C-alpha cells in the first residue's frame, strides 16, 4: 500500500511538470532574453529543492549522532544523493542559460561557483562513505562530515559572492520583476520538484534499508 502511495505521488509530480511544460509554451517570451528565460521555471525550483535536501541531511545527521538509530543514517545518505542530483540539474540548467545569454558555458560567476563547490562538498560525503567498511563508523563519520559541509555552505556562498558578482540579481527578492501570471507555473513546478525529491528519497531509503538487512543476513550466514 505504501509503495503505491509513493509511486502515485511520483506520477502526480510528473503530471504537474508535463502540464506546466504545456503552459510554458502558452506564455509570452521575456523582453530581453527571449525563450531561454523560461529555464528559470526549472532552474530555481531544483536549486531550492537541493537546499531543502541539504537541510534535511543535516537534521538526519544530527539525529543519527544523538540517537544512533541507523534509519537516520539511511535517510541522510538518501537525501544527500537526491540533493546532489537536483544540484547537478541546477548547475546544468544554469550552464545552458549562460551559454545563450553570456555566450560561454561557464563564467566563474558567484552563484555558479558556489553551487559547484557545494556539489563537490556533498560528493565528498558520498566518497567518504564508500571508503569506510564498518557500518557504525561509516554512519558516524559521514554524519560529522555532513555537519561540517552544512556549516560551510553559507560561508562558501558569501565568500564567493564577495569574490565576484556577475549573476543576474534574483528576480524574486532582488528588485527584479516577475510577471504575476507566471507565478502559478513557477509555484506548481516548485511543488512538483519537492514531491519528486521526496519520492526519490523514499525509494532510495528503501534500497538503503534493504541493503542493511542484506548485510546483516550475510554476516549471520558467515557466523554460522
Amino acid at each position: 500500500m505504501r509503495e503505491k502511495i509513493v509511486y502515485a505521488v511520483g506520477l502526480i509530480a510528473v503530471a504537474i511538470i508535463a502540464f506546466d511544460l504545456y503552459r510554458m509554451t502558452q506564455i509570452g517570451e521575456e523582453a530581453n532574453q527571449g525563450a531561454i528565460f523560461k529555464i528559470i521555471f526549472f532552474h530555481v525550483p531544483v536549486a531550492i529543492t537541493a537546499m531543502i535536501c541539504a537541510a534535511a541531511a543535516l537534521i538526519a545527521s544530527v539525529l543519527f549522532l544523538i540517537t544512533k538509530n541507523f534509519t537516520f543514517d539511511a535517510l541522510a545518505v538518501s537525501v544527500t544523493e537526491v540533493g546532489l542530483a537536483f544540484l547537478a540539474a541546477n548547475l546544468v540548467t544554469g550552464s545552458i542559460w549562460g551559454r545563450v545569454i553570456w555566450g560561454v558555458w561557464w563564467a566563474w560567476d558567484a552563484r555558479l561557483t558556489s553551487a559547484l563547490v557545494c556539489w563537490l562538498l556533498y560528493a565528498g560525503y558520498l566518497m567518504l562513505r564508500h571508503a569506510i567498511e564498518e557500518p557504525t563508523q561509516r554512519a558516524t563519520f559521514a554524519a560529522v562530515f555532513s555537519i561540517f559541509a552544512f556549516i560551510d555552505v553559507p560561508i562558501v556562498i558569501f565568500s564567493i559572492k564577495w569574490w565576484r558578482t556577475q549573476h543576474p540579481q534574483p528576480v524574486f527578492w532582488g528588485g527584479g520583476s516577475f510577471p504575476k501570471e507566471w507565478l502559478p507555473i513557477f509555484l506548481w513546478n516548485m511543488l512538483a520538484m519537492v514531491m519528486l525529491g521526496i519520492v526519490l528519497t523514499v525509494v532510495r531509503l528503501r534500497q538503503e534499508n534493504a541493503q542493511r538487512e542484506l548485510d546483516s543476513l550475510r554476516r549471520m550466514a558467515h557466523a554460522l
Partner: protein
Amino acid sequence: MSFFRLVGVVAVKDLRAELRTKEAINASFGFALVILILFSFAFERSIEGVQEISGGLLWIVFAFAGTLILNRSFARELPNDCLDALISAPIPGAALFLGKAIANFVLVLAVELVSLPVFGIFYSVDWTKQIWELLLVLLLGTWGLTVIGTIFSALTVNIRLREVMLPMLTYPIMVPALLGAMQLSSALVAGKPIGPDNVSWLKMLAGFDLIYTAASMVLVETVLVG
C-alpha cells in the same frame, strides 16, 4: 592537569616526535619547492604578473605542502596502537585535538616561512612590503587549514585510501579560507595594505577559524570514540 597544560603536553609530544625524525616536514618542504619550480613553467614571470597571482600561487603551495604534514598527524599514531593509547588516556578529546592542531600549525607555518623567501628569490618579488599584515594573514589562514586538516586527519586515519581522501575532503571545505587568504596575500605582496575594500576578507578568515575550531572541538570526541 589543567586543560591547557594537557594541550601543551600533546603539542610538545607531537613536535618532538616530528623533530626527531623530520620525515613529514622534510617531505613537505621538498614538495613546496617542487611546486614553486613547476609554477614557473606555467606562468608568465613578469613582476606585475607574478604579483597579481602571488596570493593564489603561495596558498596553493601551502595547501598542497601542508596536506603532507596533516596526513601524518594521526597516521603517525597507528603503529604500536599509539592511537588507542591516546584515546584511552584520561584527557578530553578536545585537548588531544587542540594539541595536535597546534603542533601541525607550527610545522605548516615553518614550511610556509621557509617557502616565502624562496618564492621571493625565484620570482624576484619583494614580498616584505607589508610584512606584518602578511604575517597576520599567514597566521589566520594557516590556522584555518590546520584545524580542518587535523579533524579530517582524525576522520580519515582508519579508512582505506587515506592519502587520497584527505585532500579530496578538505580542499572543498577550505575554499572560503583559501579564497580569503589568496585575495589578501596578493594585495599585500603587491604592497597594498589592508583597507576598507578587503578588510571583510580578514573578518571572514577569522570567523572561519573560530567556527571550525569550535565545531571540531565539539565533534572530535565523536570522531575518535564513535
